[in-house]
């Protein structure tokens, strides 16, 4: 498998990542010229263009262009399949929305620097490699690339102490997780003797190797590391602080994209490499899933800081998404994939809503800032209601369809009790989502709070809101795509 020269097909397969990298470098270099830095329109549009180009590249790479929908590049380092491209599209769309949403915020914070977009793009490259990596090495590299860029983004507001603190905490814990991750990989490697996922699966074919304690320990450490990345309880503790401390647009981006990337990586590793030993991790994940959604929802109940509330709700949603992984079936994978997609839109929408509000021109994240939004701007409030209902899994929203999928997958795979727990959790979660609704519709508006005027931001809101509803009324495209994307396993 070693030493085969890089072929043109490899480059074609890699074109989205290449595009992103080039775009990133371009931004970095261009920003070196003093005048360009002043230009506020330039870099966002540049980044957006890059992302869209990459998106085009991915979509071009979709079947039927790829024969059989499954191939590999770079000597098996990268998988070329619809699964990967699905997540690629997910990341890129999220990124595009995030870029559109963040511009105004950065302006108001007078922190509108090209580096922001640079790191966003590099993070994207990392995520896409996480999703497409077919070898422990490439996956690790992708993970680190994403992680390091995200650390920086979290600490992006240099002058803001909360931003620093969030970044440092995230960094330390993330570093620890990475360490555990790579150590786990080394143990797996020690047993399996190969680093490619397919190789590991073959190696685990024989029983005594599959049952060796070293492998088990490695596997558990691996699950722990992955759990950390998806913010599963009890490895979630970085999430609330990081999400709260980070600049809101960054939170918007990482709470969706990074989580999705982590899930992409997790599912590929578990379902490709460790398929033979499913029994030894599904129960483990079931416990994590239950703990995660319950903890996330309960902890969110009493939050008055809306960013923290949504942070905990993100944790809870990771719990729901895990149900699909627990199921371990093709249906389960599809469920998780759809859930992540749905989650992306509704969560981006909810976070953008926070970007929309400013108290006396300053950043704000308090529950009461939403007071009377219903009277001030019926449309904004209406959109927020949609997002909240979707997050709570109330029809007719994509959030509901997502829950439908994950619960269904769990029941189908015999995890009915988990589904029941999930269902009840959904009811509990509605309680704190409703607190926002209460603020918006049953409180008097305060003059201090004002809505920012930004076309891109409003477009983001409109788009996400539209998808939140149309995703159900016209669900077939996404659903079919998801189902066709799980064929790799």
């Amino acid at each position, binding site marked *: 498998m070693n030493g085969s020269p890089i072929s043109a097909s490899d480059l074609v397969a890699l074109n989205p990542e290449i595009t992103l990298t080039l775009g990133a470098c371009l931004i970095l270099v261009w920003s070196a010229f003093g005048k360009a830095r002043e230009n506020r329109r330039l870099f966002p549009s540049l980044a957006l263009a890059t992302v869209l180009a990459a998106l085009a590249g991915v979509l071009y790479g979709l079947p039927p262009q790829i024969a059989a929908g499954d191939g590999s590049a770079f000597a098996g380092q990268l998988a070329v399949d619809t699964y990967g491209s699905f997540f690629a599209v997910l990341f890129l769309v999220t990124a595009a929305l995030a870029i559109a949403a963040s511009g105004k915020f950065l302006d108001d914070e007078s922190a509108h620097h090209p580096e922001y977009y640079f790191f966003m793009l590099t993070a994207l490259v990392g995520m896409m490699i996480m999703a497409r990596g077919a070898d422990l090495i490439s996956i690790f590299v992708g993970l680190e690339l994403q992680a390091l860029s995200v650390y920086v983004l979290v600490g992006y507001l240099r002058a803001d102490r909360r931003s620093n*603190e969030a970044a*440092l905490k995230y960094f330390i814990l993330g570093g620890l997780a990475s360490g555990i991750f790579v150590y786990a990989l080394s143990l797996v490697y020690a047993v399996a003797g190969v680093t490619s996922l397919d190789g590991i699966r073959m190696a685990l074919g024989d029983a005594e190797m599959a049952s060796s304690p070293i492998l088990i320990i490695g596997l558990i450490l691996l699950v722990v590391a992955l759990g950390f990345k998806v913010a599963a309880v009890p490895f979630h503790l970085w999430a609330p602080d990081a999400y709260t401390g980070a600049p809101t647009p960054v939170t918007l981006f990482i709470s969706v994209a990074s989580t999705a990337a982590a899930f992409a990586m997790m599912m590929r590793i578990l379902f490709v490499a460790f398929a033979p030993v499913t029994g030894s991790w599904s129960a483990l994940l079931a416990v994590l899933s239950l703990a995660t959604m319950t903890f996330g929802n309960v902890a969110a109940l009493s939050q008055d800081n809306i960013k923290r509330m949504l942070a905990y709700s993100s944790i809870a949603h990771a719990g729901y998404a895990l149900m699909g992984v627990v199921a371990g079936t093709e249906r389960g994978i599809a469920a998780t994939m759809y859930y992540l997609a749905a989650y992306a839109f509704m969560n981006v929408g909810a976070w953008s809503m926070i970007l929309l509000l400013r108290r006396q021109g300053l950043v704000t994240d308090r529950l009461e800032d939403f007071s009377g939004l219903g009277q001030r701007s019926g449309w904004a409030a209406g959109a927020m209601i949609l997002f909240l209902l979707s997050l709570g899994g109330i029809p007719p929203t994509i959030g509901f369809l997502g829950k439908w999928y994950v619960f269904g997958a769990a029941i189908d795979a015999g995890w009915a009790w988990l589904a029941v727990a999930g269902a009840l959790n959904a009811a509990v979660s509605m309680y704190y989502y409703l607190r926002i609704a209460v603020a918006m519709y049953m409180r008097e508006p305060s003059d201090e709070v004002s809505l920012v005027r930004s076309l891109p931001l409003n477009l983001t809101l409109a788009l996400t809101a539209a998808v939140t509803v149309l995703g159900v009324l016209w669900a077939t495209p996404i659903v079919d795509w998801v189902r066709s994307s799980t064929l790799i396993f």
Partner: protein
Amino acid sequence: MDALGLNHYLLLSALLFGIGVIGVLIRRNAIMVLMCLELIFNAANINLVAVSRFRPDLAGQIFTIFTITVAAAEVVIGLGLVIAMFRNALTVNVDEIHLLKG
């Protein structure tokens, strides 16, 4: 006594890993915490190299090279963050940093 076996290396790396983790848990100074993270990475490296030595397979060593690179990058970013923190909070003690909680 016969030559060192793979298990010895695994044991060594396990100890190193443990030391690293404990260090991360107890050291107050952010710099030292970074160091301990490095220990953890190196524990992994030892494994990888040892394994690829005992069963001829280059992947482990290649992996190691990547790990080292990544670790370096990690330190860079880490120090950067510590400095930024120090600028604002005038401390590098991780237990004095707890604005964000609850």
